[in-house]
């Protein structure tokens, strides 16, 4: 039986950014998912959640736990990504200075998601929004 979780990510507040990822991490731990899998989910989801806050004004996080994999969808209706290949490059960032001063904006978020997931998909349209799908296999 699949387990579903859904969280609204507030796009206006950096102090709460990461709450959805924190909640998912705790839930997966409780369900007895292997610690290394939980850590990978937490890292990949956190980066995607932070991106929604920084670049898209917030959105929704949906997590589906299946028997063999975890599927995480970060859905926003922000400005979208014009050039996904460019955005995927290490070091590429359009983050404003205020965000950089907080330690974000190193342009490593999307590469980190790729590194820690088994599959990653970006569906995006400029002016419409972005959905980042992260899949992590359970074994």
């Amino acid at each position, binding site marked *: 039986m699949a387990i579903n979780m859904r969280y609204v990510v507030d796009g206006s507040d950096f102090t709460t950014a990461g709450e959805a990822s924190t909640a998912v991490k705790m839930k997966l731990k409780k369900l007895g998912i292997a610690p290394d899998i939980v850590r990978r989910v937490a890292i990949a989801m956190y980066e995607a959640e932070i991106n929604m806050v920084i670049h898209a004004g917030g959105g929704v996080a949906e997590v589906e736990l299946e028997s063999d994999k975890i599927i995480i969808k970060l859905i926003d209706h922000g400005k979208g990504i014009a050039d996904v290949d460019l955005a995927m490059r290490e070091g590429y960032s359009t983050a404003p200075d205020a965000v950089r001063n*907080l330690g974000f904006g190193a342009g490593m978020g999307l590469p980190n998601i790729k590194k820690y997931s088994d599959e990653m998909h970006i569906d995006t349209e400029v002016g419409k929004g972005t959905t980042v799908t992260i899949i992590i296999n359970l074994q």
Partner: protein
Amino acid sequence: MTVRQLCEKAGFSPVTELNDVEVNGAYCCDLLSWIIGRAKENAALVTVMTNVNVIAVAVMAELSCVVLTEGVILDAAALEKARQNGVAVLSSEKPSYETSVLIHNLLGK
């Protein structure tokens, strides 16, 4: 070495409650995506960043503790989050390089 032992031996000041989580190395950086992407599990994070997101990163990447350097003061929201999540935060008066060397020597690596 545990966080508690590291704090005592290095002469750091505890900012939040100490615990007995194992410290197996250190990662010195102020850029959050580098930290979350590269720091190993149970590493001590050596940084001058004091905002709440540093604590979130420590939780996500399962770091053993955060060692603030140069005597910087943790933000109130970060302090609250560290307490909530049981993240040990230590304070060093020394710069990040010296603090990292000190940890390295104490860990005998």
